[in-house]
């Protein structure tokens, strides 16, 4: 038996050796299983569409291929997946998501000079993960700065916060505490919930007791939907508000979420530029005319960004490596991506306007766009 086990191990080693392709390969560390797997599906649809367009346009000499690895939205599997991508596949560019995952893989990215690009996590810490960690998504602190004045303007100054107890939730708490006083507002209740909690009727009772005008929900995936539903079911009538994490299809179509306000990166679909129009048209063609969420835009942009940078490197006759991609990004002032022309801050984070959306008939309706500086 022991011999058989070692034989199996040897077979593993052999197997692991194969699979070097001729394609240009980039990696993605997305949740494909577990409670947050829904995000993986969403992110992937954006990234795949961009790869399709890049290949259709023959932007690169060889076809682009995205290698997906499962992170389960957890740091440890993510590190294993990331190691595989950078050490075995030796990809120069990895798509990342989720604040915890991104933080976990950032050291690997830095050490191996591989660019990691986040288009989903919005924890403000993500701006501080080094040169090789980029964000194509405005981080949550910006979103709160847009939402608070909007609420105040509409007479909602007493805000209750229901937040998941992690870096994202913490940072939203900090931002609310910092920004509400500026508009004469007040945080009347701060209720943190563990990541695994599913039942919020008790929380709802406390929200009601706080007499808030608006309730800000800061969580993810299944949990944020459950919070919204259970708040409404348990007699909370105050305005609901959230951040870009709420822009998943199943959150938007929740009946109890009707009327909820949430912020996203402003994507100006009416912009006449070709990139945006083509993205919108092709996405809607593939998805029964549905409007893409900001995440889909972000990961489309992340892949498109790679395409643009890699194309330039190929033209200059340089190899596509993480270091060269970084240098090229720093040398380029602005990029034409979906939603318009954007530029990166020095810390590798995209600056973009934020818009406040309202859920009307199960879809987000933009209310107002705020420029944040």
């Amino acid at each position, binding site marked *: 038996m022991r011999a058989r086990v070692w034989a199996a191990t040897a077979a593993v080693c052999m197997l692991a050796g194969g699979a070097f392709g001729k394609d240009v390969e980039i990696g993605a560390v997305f949740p494909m*299983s*577990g*409670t*947050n*797997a*829904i995000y993986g599906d969403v992110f992937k649809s954006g990234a795949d569409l961009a790869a399709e367009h890049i290949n259709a346009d023959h932007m690169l000499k060889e076809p682009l291929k995205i290698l997906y690895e499962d992170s389960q939205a957890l740091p440890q599997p993510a590190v294993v997946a990331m190691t595989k991508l950078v050490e075995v596949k030796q990809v120069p560019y990895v798509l990342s998501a989720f604040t915890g995952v991104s933080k976990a893989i950032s050291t690997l990215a830095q050490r191996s000079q591989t660019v990691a690009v986040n288009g989903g996590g919005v924890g403000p810490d993500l701006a501080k993960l080094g040169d090789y960690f980029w964000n194509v998504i405005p981080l949550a602190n910006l979103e709160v700065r847009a939402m608070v004045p909007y609420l105040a303007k509409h007479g909602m100054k007493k805000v209750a916060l229901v937040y998941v*107890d992690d870096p994202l939730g913490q940072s939203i708490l900090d931002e609310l505490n910092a920004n509400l006083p500026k508009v004469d507002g007040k945080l009347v209740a701060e*209720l*943190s*919930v*563990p990541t*695994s*909690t*599913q*039942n*919020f*009727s*008790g*929380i709802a*009772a*406390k929200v*009601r*007791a706080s007499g808030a005008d608006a309730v800000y929900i800061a969580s993810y*995936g*299944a*949990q944020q*939907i*459950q919070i919204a*539903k*259970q708040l*409404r*079911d*348990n*007699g909370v009538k105050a305005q609901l508000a959230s951040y870009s994490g709420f822009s*998943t299809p*199943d959150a938007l179509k*929740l*009946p109890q979420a009707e009327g909820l306000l949430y912020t996203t990166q402003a994507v100006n679909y009416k912009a006449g530029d070709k990139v945006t129009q083509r993205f919108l048209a092709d996405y809607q063609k593939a998805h029964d005319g549905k409007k893409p969420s900001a995440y889909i835009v972000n990961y489309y942009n992340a892949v498109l960004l790679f395409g643009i940078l890699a194309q330039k490197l190929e033209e200059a006759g340089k190899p596509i490596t993480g270091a060269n991609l970084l240098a090229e990004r720093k040398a380029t002032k602005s990029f034409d991506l979906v939603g318009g022309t954007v530029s990166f801050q020095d810390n590798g984070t995209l600056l973009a306007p934020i818009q406040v959306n309202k859920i009307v008939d199960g879809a987000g309706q933009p209310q107002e766009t705020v420029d944040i500086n």
Partner: protein
Amino acid sequence: MLWLQLTLTGLQTGALYALTAVGFSLIFGATRVFHFAHGAAFVLAAYVFYWADTAGLGMIPGIVLAALAAMAFGVAMDRLVYAPIQRHEGSFFTVFVASFGIGIVVENVVGMVFGRSFVTIDSTLSQSRELMEGVYVAPLAWIAIACAAVFFAALQLFLRRTHTGMALRALADSPELIRVFGLDPRRLSSIAFALGSALVVPGAVMTALGSGLNPALGHHVMLISLAATIVGGIGSIGGALVAGFVLGLAENLALIAFPSQWSEAVTFAILFLVIILRPAGLFGRATAH
């Protein structure tokens, strides 16, 4: 008013915990199988009900199908997983690991079939009405509490009045005796699994209607059931019921004093202390050794 509201919410939560815990306790008490996949039965029943609803089959057929699915799962686990393990070695841990493994399988299969995100059934039953100033109660809360009472009473009646029920109670103590009385312990064990698994159905259906479902739900349900079974005292069905309510109330009333992330810790601190200080549980007679 907050405490009254939280008490009512606590009772509703507790009712769901209580029945699920009674199911686990029944199985564990009778067969000594640490049926960790009990949470999976919960998820399965809830999703079958959800599927029946989306297919437009209606509430009652949905409940019946959910019950059938849960029972079939329980019996299948007993016959296909636990029985073969018990035939050779049957150490307690071997059973536990197998059960845990199946729990993972069910969670992921459900995720693949129904999607991994949150689903809910829209129903007016989950929408609260104002009972008095500042106190909201959903019709579902009353249904949950009534269900707990009715199902528990029916179970007690079965266990005390019927031949099979009495045999089930005796099964854990003396399988030999059961054989002497001409009953088949294997068959009894399957009955325990069928009954215990059926008891997840009220909780599963009400969760589908109330707080909503996702495939990872089973884990929490299982841990609470386990805690309730031990706190209530292994082998004490009534103890599990009471402990289920106690844990539901504790979870909600703890909100008055603590931030909510400590509420799970409260549950397990209670569990840990009970095992150290009173291993037989609050209502148990059996000793821990």
